């Protein structure tokens, strides 16, 4: 059978969602941000809620998320996305509101805003991309940088005796009564993408039911910051990031798992 006979509109089974704009993503080749964007927008498309969804973009590599997500979006100051989302959600309680933040934004400069939005149980979705490094500013240490991991501000490896420990923000917010669903996912393999998408769908369903805050960490790669080839960085992530940041649900239906 000729390929031309297969590639016909009636045989299409997958293409990028139209809720992503046509702009080429500003992310490095192989970066998980793009995949995370795609599945977030796919969920919004499949739920048919794009006319009622407002996204909040952070500061960091995904600062330009609003260029790629074809919905109404507000770009927040560094770390303040949960407060910005709170403001939007409180005045439009029937809209869907989500933040999309990296580790520096969410766990460092915005730690307080994150904790308090979670603790209030704001009825929003927080999507947290953790790649253990500051990508946009050129590979500096993040709160989630692993012990011994090299970055431009931990050039000899993160020394936990002076630089502190990697912050498990997701475990931390799971302890707060306001969070209803807390999970850690990844997007490096087809199965991981399917699971992560299911989690994002669940998060938006929770918002629809007004049950509280849904928090989804996506452990991701940063091949530029880690100075690796894209596929190698995914393998390194599996071997090094996952042991410290294990994948899976941490809190479901308001109850800690196990």
């Amino acid at each position, binding site marked *: 059978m000729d390929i031309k006979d*297969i*590639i016909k509109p009636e045989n299409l089974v997958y293409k990028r969602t139209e809720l992503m704009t046509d702009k080429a993503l500003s992310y*490095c*080749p192989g970066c998980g941000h793009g*995949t995370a964007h795609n599945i977030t927008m796919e969920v919004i498309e499949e739920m048919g809620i794009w006319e009622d969804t407002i996204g909040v973009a952070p500061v960091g590599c995904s600062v330009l998320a609003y260029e790629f997500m074809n919905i109404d979006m507000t770009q927040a100051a560094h770390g303040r996305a949960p407060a910005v989302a709170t403001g939007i959600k409180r005045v439009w309680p029937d809209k869907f509101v989500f933040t999309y933040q990296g580790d520096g934004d969410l766990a460092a400069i915005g730690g307080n805003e994150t904790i308090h939005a979670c603790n209030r149980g704001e009825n929003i979705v927080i999507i947290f991309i953790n790649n253990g490094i500051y990508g946009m500013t050129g590979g500096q240490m993040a709160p989630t940088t692993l012990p011994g991991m090299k970055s431009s501000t931990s050039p000899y490896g993160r020394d936990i005796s002076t630089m502190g420990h990697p912050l498990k923000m997701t475990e931390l917010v799971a302890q707060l009564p306001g969070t209803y669903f807390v999970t850690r996912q990844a997007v490096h*393999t*087809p199965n991981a993408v*399917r699971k992560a998408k299911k989690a994002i769908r669940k998060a938006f369903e929770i918002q629809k039911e007004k049950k509280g805050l849904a928090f989804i960490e996506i452990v991701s790669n940063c091949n530029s910051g880690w100075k690796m080839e*894209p596929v190698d960085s995914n393998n390194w992530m599996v071997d090094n990031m996952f042991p410290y940041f294990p994948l899976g649900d941490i809190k479901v239906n308001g109850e800690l798992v196990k």
Partner: protein
Amino acid sequence: MAKIKGAIEVDVEKCKGCGVCIPACPTDVILLAKNVNGKGYHYAYMENPEACIGCVNCAIVCPDGVISVYKVKVA
């Protein structure tokens, strides 16, 4: 028994040649081209199109969403 035939279409100019789709493919269909696109990236292509089963694995792990997938049942 009906056989599934698949094919992918890569938006060559938007592909960044990261190669994440290659290990995602269960039937080893994809490789990076020796040629480069306008941005200098070795884009993904079907090296072994006969083996494609249209499973969409490559497309869903593609960070840039440049892969469209087509599938037909062949009697």
